[in-house]
């Protein structure tokens, strides 16, 4: 599927992320406490030119679906949608505790988010792809490669 993942404890998160990022890179600040992109080699709030030039885009996701390899890209003022869509590599940070078993569990979460007023999500599964040009090609209007960094709690 041209997608991969690694599992790291939170104290190794920053070094793992640095290994995964090919610069230039852009990011949208992560949507959870205790993990931040402020020390990562990414440009937050990038300019349009930086967005276009970036090889990697880093976003966080509050939803992973184990059975499908799906993550949620949220529509947030931090610009997750652009960061996740323009660069050829998308690096997604997911906390292990936010991974749901299957689509049915994920919909339970989505319904609760809807009730809380957060109502725009893209369930993204692997890289952008097309078969319209005669064979399967990845990286069309979206990323060509997706890497998911799963962060576990420290023991």
């Amino acid at each position: 599927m041209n997608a991969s993942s690694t599992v790291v404890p939170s104290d190794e998160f920053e070094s793992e992320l640095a290994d995964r990022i090919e610069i230039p890179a852009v990011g949208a600040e992560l949507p959870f406490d205790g993990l931040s992109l402020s020390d990562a080699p990414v440009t937050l709030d990038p300019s349009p030119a930086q967005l276009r030039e970036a090889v990697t885009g880093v976003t966080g996701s509050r939803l992973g679906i184990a059975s499908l390899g799906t993550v949620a890209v949220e529509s947030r003022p931090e610009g997750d949608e652009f960061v996740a869509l323009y660069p050829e590599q998308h690096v997604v940070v997911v906390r292990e505790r936010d991974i749901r078993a299957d689509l049915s569990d994920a919909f339970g979460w989505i319904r609760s988010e809807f009730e809380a007023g957060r109502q725009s999500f893209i369930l993204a599964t692997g890289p952008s792809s097309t078969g319209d040009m005669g064979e399967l090609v990845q990286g069309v209007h979206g990323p060509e490669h997706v890497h998911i960094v799963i962060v576990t709690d420290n023991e």
Partner: protein
Amino acid sequence: MSDSSRLNADRIRTLLETESDEIKENTRLFNAERYDAVDGVGADAHDRNRTRAREIKEEAIERLPDLIRRTRDAVEANGGTVYVADTAADANRYIRETLAEKDADSVVKSKSMTTEEIELNDALEAADLDVWETDLGEFVIQVAEEAPSHIVGPSLHKSREEITELFEREFDPDESLDSAQKLTAFAREFLGERIDDADVGITGANFVMAESGSIALVTNEGNARKCASIPDTHVAVAGIEKIIPSIDELEPFAELISRSATGQDIPQYLSILTPPVETPTIDFDREDEPAFGNGDADRDFHLVLVDNGRRRMRQDDDLRETLYCIRCGACANSCANFQSVGGHAFGGETYTGGIATGWEAGIEGLDVAEEFNDLCTGCSRCVNACPVKIDIPWINTVVRDRINRGKDPGFDDLLVDGLVPDEEASGTPLRKRFFGNFETVAKLGSATAPLSNVVAATGVARKAMETTLGIDTRRDLPTFERTTLREWAIDRDTTVEDPVRRVALYPDVYTNYVRTERGKAAVRVLEALGCEVVVPDVGGSGRAPLSQGMVATATEKAENVASSLLAYLEADYDVVVVEPSDLAMFRREYEKLLPAEQQERLADGSYEILEFVYGLLENGANPDALTAGDGEGVAYHSHCQQRTLGLESYTEAVLKRLGYDVLTSDVECCGMAGSFGYKSEYYELSMDVGEHLAEQFEGAVDERTVVASGTSCTEQLDALLSPGTRHPIELLDPVNPAGR
């Protein structure tokens, strides 16, 4: 044959020569992937999703006016605008005016069949707007100035080489675009620039959720995401039937749509958006400023809900189901005829495949539906493929009936009215009446056999039949037996002591007049297994007239069958049926033709012959009474309608139990499908479809007996391979086993 039919034959031949290879490869791949994906999730889970999706759609269409109101309230509360357009022109006018207010001069679009339906691109281009399709398949079609050939893959009739040639001619790139990767890279860059510069993004909406005013978009490329988020203004265009109540109802569709379409468990991107979204606006004119250009524009959202005939369809008891369609294309992919000719034959102005007849009849009119309606042979392979359980063959039959009735009666009709009295309105074409009244032809042919067979086979007669009825001279005609199965059965002198079951063997038209051997074998097998067998005096099931869209005649036949067979069922007989298409009538189509109680009684009390034999053996009947296989090889082709009913496995199980080595075909349909392959304009298509089946059996026929459950399949296999195809029941015959 009429001129229009002849044109049709040419058109089909041209498509078989030009587009067929690509269409076949792509649709068969989608179809195979769908089967794998359904296996992956489990047939039961898949069917639960289908049942739930169907319920949601039934209720949503029932409550549609209320859901439209609630959608409007929610979208407006979110800060967007809803416009309900009565017609295509109305929708186009609203969108054009909205764009003019924005001073827009460029538009990027994500794939939307609804905008194809209303011909939005033409309307926008006429207003001097620069319009680009961003889905790569749609982009190819736009550049080629063609119409989509498939609901999901608009350009899947084009090979990579053809796209290379097209792009190199149109865009004159610096280096050759001679691979899928290079083509994709070129399109990405070309369209990427246009998306970044566009004033307005237009998308469809796969689902609209009334309660929150959200839309769901399904894409693999990510272009819908870009069209919805990069331009400040987003216009979503959707048919009014796309509304479901809330996010709660989206789940089964999320499970079904990609699995049914392409065999993916979930699309690459399932966007659930409640516009205006919180993604900041982006300003490429200030490309060095942080925060995406510090754009201060507001996001603007318009939802255009298109009626264009849909409210009328909602009031129409037969077309209503069409509105449950979620545009997955599974009906097209599972259709053997579609696999051969694609949507440029099997489709109308917009929609393609099995469900296209319903859409085109509802939106464009019967005249558009008529152009391709006859390509549906009623094989029913799309029935289980449809994620919302739409009875697509029934819609096609009803539309065929309406087309028949809409015709002016000609001289031929006045003539035929006297010869073959049926229940149809005058105007039903002569040929349809001939095939629809095949039972009358068979009675006459049998009564005058063998002379009738000799006469019918002469060159003069064949030529005359081709001219008046369009019966292709290349297809062998059925040979009528002088002694019918029923006459043979009455004259027999057998008694089964202390029978385990009493069976009324249904003498369908073919078994009674043409293929009597399979009927005799059925009687002998049932008796050998301890059953008392009668062959009742009962007429045709109505399958033949129904195939021709002659619903009134089919209903009359159904009523006659019910009154005869229900008496046997009351007297504790089981009804056993040899011809699968007739059993399919009892179990499926009679739901539409008979009172529910009668239909259910008949459906519950009737069995396919090998299904019944399986049951007898399971209940202790002695298989030694039948002819055993002793390892003999069998190449078995089930029947399309039999497979739809899930009955194929009984034949396989019985043959295996009796020691046969069974190789089963897995093509959707043999291509003959009743009268279809006899018709001059469809003969070549029928043979093209049959090739797929022949290829599967080609290597096996020397060592294996070829068996088929259906009459049409038998005739087709005889034409494709070599004569000698048997019904499986004939192999088991204790007296005259076939293939020995």
